[in-house]
């Protein structure tokens, strides 16, 4: 790969160094408040709603999204915005008023922990492994993507870019835990919004405004006539048909993402009150309104300015190189670092929490018959955080050679979303759902989504990522059936879980005490029991 000449002036470098320094100082300041593993993992339950809301948004939008989101807008147009708009509401409202109070009161730390208590250790193990695999591979991918971006635009060697990120994110996450992650995220969101806003403003200025951009792109030919349509007909060759968006994204994937994503759950559980936890999700849903404007519109602007780009993912780097004056370049790079670090710190913190909560703690209880010492847990959590980020740093350069690992992880993860939501919803709302039902629903649901994904072209008329990954189909992707697959796998899992649960003995009252919505939210005796359980933890 050819390294480019750096476009940064001394003032840009000062802005970036000052920003990275401020992030490290914040991490150090928060380290003095971390006295227990609870302080590290859940920020001592002290976070205000505005910080969590900002953190949820910025964790969701990483550096990859800033580059590839704009690239997708360049290629497919405004329909890409549905992932942030239809993907936020009503899912985040449902999560705010249903799942957040439920998680808050039932005292669980992770989704695998809840599913384990509700359906047994097999489901817990299954979920923990898939989440961990996804989080770790994403860490390496994020580090590599940022290295490629910095190398292309600044000429910074890949290794230097990777280890700079590892150092900064590792230090403040190890020192300050979730509190440092959330507070730096809030700061990073402000920087990201200012930087992305500046890039958008300059791009539109260069084109001559919004109407000139629409006119230029519309005049490019018939293949661009859908570029400004948010909803696209199912008959058009597009990966984002409106029906798939509604059924797959709106109903299943977005609800599954916000109700089961460890980064989201951990943040709301770190809130200082249940009200703050609920309010944070609503604030995040409001802030998500702005994401397509800041992240996707630069992609459309790049299409109007540079229609000949072979790789759409080069849209943002091209704008950065061509348009930004000294000073603003530093700000936009700070925004890029902000987006990168906010996602890396979230995945890092979440992966550590899953290993400790769903691996180390239960294993210690089984082996020694008692809970692990908290100081030992805190030390282990910090060491593990360091080990994971360094391991991701070593793994990152190999991602380039094994791109299929990333594709495979993304695809495998998407296969789990529909079945996981089905099992979660029934576990929370239906007392009769039992361990057999949950296990069968999850296992057969994943099998169903795998089969549907494999025959995606014949069944839905689009080529599947899974088929491409398996290496026996090399046609270019005309689309991806994941939206339809997620929906039908969700429906199938619901049916399987209900049928198998009804055919096997119901769970005893003791088994589901404190784990079903009606009890957790309304029953006073259960709430008292849960409060005692949380305090004793």
């Amino acid at each position, binding site marked *: 790969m050819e390294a480019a000449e750096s476009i940064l002036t001394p003032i840009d470098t000062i802005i970036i160094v000052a920003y990275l320094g401020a992030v490290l100082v914040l991490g150090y300041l928060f380290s003095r408040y971390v006295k227990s593993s609870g302080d590290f993992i859940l920020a001592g339950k002290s976070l205000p709603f505005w910080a969590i809301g900002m953190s949820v948004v910025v964790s969701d939008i990483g550096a990859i999204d800033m580059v590839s989101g704009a690239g997708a807008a360049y290629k497919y147009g405004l329909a890409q915005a549905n992932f942030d708009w239809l993907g936020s509401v009503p899912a985040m409202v*449902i999560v705010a008023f249903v799942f957040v109070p439920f998680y808050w009161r039932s005292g669980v730390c992770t989704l695998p922990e809840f599913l384990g208590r509700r359906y047994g250790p097999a489901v817990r193990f299954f979920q923990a492994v898939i989440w961990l695999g996804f989080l770790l591979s994403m860490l390496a991918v994020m580090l590599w993507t940022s290295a490629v971006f910095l190398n292309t635009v600044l000429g910074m060697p890949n290794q230097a870019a990777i280890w700079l990120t590892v150092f900064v994110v590792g230090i403040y996450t190890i020192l300050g835990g979730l509190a440092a992650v959330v507070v730096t995220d809030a700061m990073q969101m402000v920087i990201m919004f200012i930087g992305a806003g500046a890039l958008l403003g300059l791009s539109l200025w260069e084109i001559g405004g919004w109407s000139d951009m629409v006119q230029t792109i519309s005049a490019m030919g018939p293949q661009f006539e859908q570029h400004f349509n948010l909803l696209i007909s199912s008959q058009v060759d597009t990966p984002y048909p409106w029906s798939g968006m509604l059924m797959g994204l709106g109903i299943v994937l977005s609800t599954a993402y916000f109700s089961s994503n460890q980064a989201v759950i951990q943040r709301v559980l770190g809130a200082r009150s249940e009200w703050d936890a609920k309010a944070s999700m609503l604030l995040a849903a409001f802030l998500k*309104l702005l994401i397509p404007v800041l992240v996707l519109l630069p992609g459309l602007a790049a299409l109007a300015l540079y229609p000949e780009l072979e790789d759409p993912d080069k849209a943002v780097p091209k704008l950065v190189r061509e348009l930004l004056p000294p000073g603003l370049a530093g700000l936009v790079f700070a925004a890029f670092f902000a987006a990168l670090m906010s996602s890396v710190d979230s995945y890092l913190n979440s992966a550590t929490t899953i290993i400790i909560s769903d691996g180390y703690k239960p294993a210690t209880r089984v082996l020694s018959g008692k809970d692990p010492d908290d100081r030992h847990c805190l030390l282990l959590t910090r060491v593990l955080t360091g080990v994971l980020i360094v391991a991701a740093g070593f793994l990152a350069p190999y991602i380039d050679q094994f791109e299929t690992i990333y594709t495979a992880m993304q695809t495998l993860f998407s296969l789990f979303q529909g079945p996981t939501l089905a099992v979660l919803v029934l576990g929370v709302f239906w007392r009769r759902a039992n361990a057999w039902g949950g296990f069968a629903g999850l296992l057969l649901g994943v099998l169903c989504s795998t*089969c549907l994904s494999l*025959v995606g072209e014949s069944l839905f008329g689009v080529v599947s990522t899974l088929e491409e990954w398996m290496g026996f189909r090399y046609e270019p992707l005309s689309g991806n059936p994941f939206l339809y697959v997620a929906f039908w796998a969700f429906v199938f899992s619901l049916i399987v879980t209900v049928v198998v649960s009804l055919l096997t003995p119901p769970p005893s009252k003791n088994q589901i005490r404190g784990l079903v919505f009606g009890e957790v939210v309304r029953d006073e005796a259960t709430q008292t029991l849960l409060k005692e359980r949380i305090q004793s933890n």
Partner: protein
Amino acid sequence: MEKITLILEQNLVPLLKPAVDSFHSVIDQLPSPVWRFSICAYLVMGTVWALFLSRDYVLLGSPDQARWRDLRLWVPVLLVPYLLIYLFI
């Protein structure tokens, strides 16, 4: 893996294809105002139920009873911009 896919293509696809096709043919025939209406109806139905939650449930954990802390009031403020987007873009 190719064999598995072939088996699925020969056995699963003929079984599901008629149902999937008839479902999609109905969807494909719908005019674009119906798409907008469906999405907007989903947005409204998915959020307005929150307005009927009890005040105690919504305010639990709130440091005070100030009007702005009633999260039910946040829902319409949140919903309106999303509705405008899907009605007019």
